[in-house]
């Protein structure tokens, strides 16, 4: 299972990639594989203030619907509109074209509380 080392992770299978004073958020390769074919992504509203752990998006697959949580507190500044027409990008390229939203953290330092690639690998091993 692919776990890039350039970004942070949550126990709930989101990734957070810092870019300037914002972070890009999506779901991991493991998460997209577990969900199966994604058929719909419900995107949050741009401008919405969110708390860490708050459900901000929903990914629906042929199997189930799953909440996507904000990895840190902040404001939604952009969403991936391409997912409205092509939600399968989440399956095809979970770490790239399949990103879900961009968040401006209240404090970039909050990212340090998240897992690194090694920590996330351990989470996956404990779940298997």
């Amino acid at each position: 299972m692919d776990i890039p080392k350039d970004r942070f992770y949550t126990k709930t299978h989101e990734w957070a990639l810092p870019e300037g004073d914002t972070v890009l958020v999506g779901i991991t390769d493991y998460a997209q594989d577990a969900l199966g074919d994604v058929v719909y992504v419900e995107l949050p509203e741009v401008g919405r203030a969110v708390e860490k752990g708050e459900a901000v998006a929903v990914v629906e697959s042929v199997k189930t619907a799953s909440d996507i949580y904000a990895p840190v507190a902040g404001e939604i500044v952009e969403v991936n509109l391409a997912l409205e027409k092509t939600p399968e990008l989440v399956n095809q390229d979970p770490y790239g074209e399949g990103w879900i939203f961009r968040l401006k953290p209240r404090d970039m330092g909050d990212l340090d509380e998240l897992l690194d690639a090694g920590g996330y690998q351990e989470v996956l091993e404990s779940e298997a």
Partner: protein
Amino acid sequence: MSFPLIFERSRKGRRGLKLVKAVPKAEDLIPKEHLREVPPRLPEVDELTLVRHYTGLSRRQVGVDTTFYPLGSCTMKYNPKLHEEAARLFADLHPYQDPKTAQGALRLMWELGEYLKALTGMDAITLEPAAGAHGELTGILIIRAYHEDRGEGRTRRVVLVPDSAHGSNPATASMAGYQVREIPSGPEGEVDLEALKRELGPHVAALMLTNPNTLGLFERRILEISRLCKEAGVQLYYDGANLNAIMGWARPGDMGFDVVHLNLHKTFTVPHGGGGPGSGPVGVKAHLAPYLPVPLVAKGEEGFYLDFHRPKSIGRVRSFYGNFLALVRAWAYIRTLGLEGLKKAAALAVLNARYLKELLKEKGYRVPYDGPSMHEFVAQPPQGFRALDLAKGLLELGFHPPTVYFPLIVKEALMVEPTETEAKETLEAFAEAMGELLEKPKEWLENAPYSTPVRRLDELRANKHPKLTYFDEG
């Protein structure tokens, strides 16, 4: 093999019945402005074509009358045919009839309400909601009205649900305008009490629980949970989906629940599946009774009547009085079995689930939360097998599959609920089939089923490009 729609069998001018006597024309009976300009597109077929069409459809149908149907969390028990006879007795009743002329029907509703109150330990009840999720919404709207009435509507904005909850729980809370917070399950599959304590507070309106929960396990600390809720002013909601396990043995009201919804189409033998009609009565404790929907069936000095005078009611939630014929079937079930019979049904439901769980473990299936199972259990296939493939393979072996991929906290979940109405031999035959699947070549499983009317469906296309209407291109 393709099976034509009734519209595709239609031939212009073909009739099943030739009327000998002249019948009045619509134009002579109905004012012109109310008549449609284009006649409706109804299929035109002869009687034999019609009979073959529907008989053919019925032979393609899978249901509890044709096969074992262990769909977890759905309680697909047998629906006695006697109840259909009982329902037929009310076929001529009209909902606009003067209640004075429908005393028998009102008495049946009133009695059913009393039985359900006695079984759940609740003080008042509505029979109006049309099914489970509708009952949930009614229950949460009642809770919302209660908080609003006490001036806490603006502060209590959160509904808590466990991570093993039915999807309808968070959906209901969200539809009623609440934010949803998830409570994780502890290592034994029950609500994590410490996590619950952290979430409870003056901002919480309700906690929604199923007991036994969706892992088929009884929440053993339910009394402590209800005490914590009471202290925090949080209303405790009972999702009745799993009542079949405890019917007659334990009552949600005694556990401290404030609201209960029941699924008469699960627990009380109302036919189920195929889209209903179901029935989802909602029982409440006395402090919530003023908010119940109108009308309620009441008993007065001059007989039974419909009570509309309830100023704090949340209003109607369904036209007329709910799905009345579903109520007749539930009444017939309760009267046939009596309290002792209902208790025995629940006990046998638990016994069947436990027996089948042990059989599947012998066949190599895993049970991650292997506590004292109640009416159902959640199994996992051995490593390397996909729940979906096994479900499709079961269709080939002549069984309806269990629920798969639910609850979400178990990977490759197979949620099995045999119900009390299955014989020991059926459970054993099912376990044999489940064992046989593990012996099949991978390729066989991945391509199953083979001999069903349709093969494996393209679920992705069905989700993304569903064709929901029929258009006659000609």
